[in-house]
């Protein structure tokens, strides 16, 4: 390719990045859409431009497209997550990968090699996008009902003057993850009181994994036989995290019986 073309591409490559406002606005709309069970408006086809490309993904999208009108996404996802025991995503690895891009020294040691290690390297290739505003994380308690928060369709606004993004609190996220893994391990061992103590002792303002912490607490209360407490916590959980996929675990717990 000509040098002139390469220079041109260098000039425009990053010229249309979304702003943090764009990111936050779409995130809010996405969260509301998920909570409301809105299906994607597109019907992605099996083919790209008439050729059978992307077949590894095609069937799934075809089903998605054919499913047409509104579905209860939560129900679908919950059913899928309960039905597929071994499809757990290497999300721990994802988070570790993300942290590795920001704090290499801290995140070097895997938390749980068995569960979290596969496929981490691929996340190192890309810069980490600015985090959401702390007050509006994807998993934070929602204070408004879905119906009062329709998906935002506002046009993208002008890029804000390059305000430095607040760095992701990698150490906080790592601590969250470690806590949840300890809690999860304790619950699996049947040591619910250990799990509860760990949850009680955890002090953080990070709400990224708030739904997970609350769900884990409900499961622990169930294990301890504290059904009434679990029910109260579960009722709060459903109100505050209607879009959380942990809802399936909560609703499948003793709190719902």
């Amino acid at each position, binding site marked *: 390719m000509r040098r002139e073309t390469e220079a041109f591409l260098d000039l425009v490559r990053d010229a249309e990045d979304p702003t943090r406002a764009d990111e936050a606005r779409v995130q809010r709309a996405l969260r509301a859409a998920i909570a409301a069970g809105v299906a*994607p408006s597109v019907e992605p086809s099996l083919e790209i431009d008439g050729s059978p490309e992307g077949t590894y993904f095609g069937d799934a999208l075809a089903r998605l497209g054919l499913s047409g009108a509104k579905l209860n996404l939560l129900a679908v996802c919950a059913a899928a997550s309960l039905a597929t025991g071994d499809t757990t995503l*290497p999300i721990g690895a994802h988070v570790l990968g993300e942290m590795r891009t920001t704090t290499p020294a801290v995140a070097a040691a895997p938390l749980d090699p068995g569960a979290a290690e596969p496929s981490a390297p691929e996340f190192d290739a890309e810069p980490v996008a*600015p985090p959401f505003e702390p007050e509006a994380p994807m998993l934070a308690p929602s204070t408004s009902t879905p119906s009062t928060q329709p998906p935002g369709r506002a046009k993208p606004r002008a890029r804000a003057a390059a305000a430095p993004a607040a760095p992701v609190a990698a150490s906080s996220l790592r601590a969250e993850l470690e806590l949840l893994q300890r809690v999860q391990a304790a619950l699996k061992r049947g040591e619910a009181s250990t799990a509860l103590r760990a949850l009680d002792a955890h002090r953080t303002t990070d709400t990224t994994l708030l739904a997970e912490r609350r769900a884990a607490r409900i499961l622990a209360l169930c294990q301890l036989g504290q059904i009434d407490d679990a029910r109260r916590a579960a009722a709060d959980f459903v109100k505050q995290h209607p879009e959380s996929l942990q809802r399936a675990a909560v609703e499948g717990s003793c709190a719902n019986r």
Partner: protein
Amino acid sequence: MASSIVYPAEAVAEVLPRPLALDGVYREHFKSVWRLLRRLGVAVAQLDDASQDVFLIVHRKLADFDGRAPLRSWVFAIAVRVASDYRRRAVRGRTEQLDDAIADTAPNPARLRELRESVEQLHEMLGELDDKKRTVFVLSELEQLSAPEIASVLGVNLNTVYSRLRGAKKSFDAALSRRRAARSPGVGR
């Protein structure tokens, strides 16, 4: 403490991974998905909807993600299809809000003007490529994916990627030269 309630290990195992997924995937990939959709011809006014659709699909399909392809490839594959769908439905004439999209990214008015013109040219020239070449070109030259990763995103073989990329680069080179020549008729190429 002995508990009278047996809690299924599978349900316990559900705690933690998946909900973090959407949050993390969004944070990691929103920016590139947004850019990709735009460069694949989604109108500025449709970018919110299209981005949301991409991540709604991601949300729905995360449980099916098997890790065989990198997550980025998987997300981009969704974005490519969503863009294709939006493009098909789109009403032509999508530069109406271009100024908004790149406002304030340049340090001074002259630079801003140059950038606006360049971005406008970019979209014109991308629009002159056929959709297959355009997609490969954008993934390679703007998102800077490797050819194997592009092959993975599109589900085509590597030779096809190289072939389309060659064609796209040639067309893009020619288009840029034409524009430069038209703007500076007195200057030789």
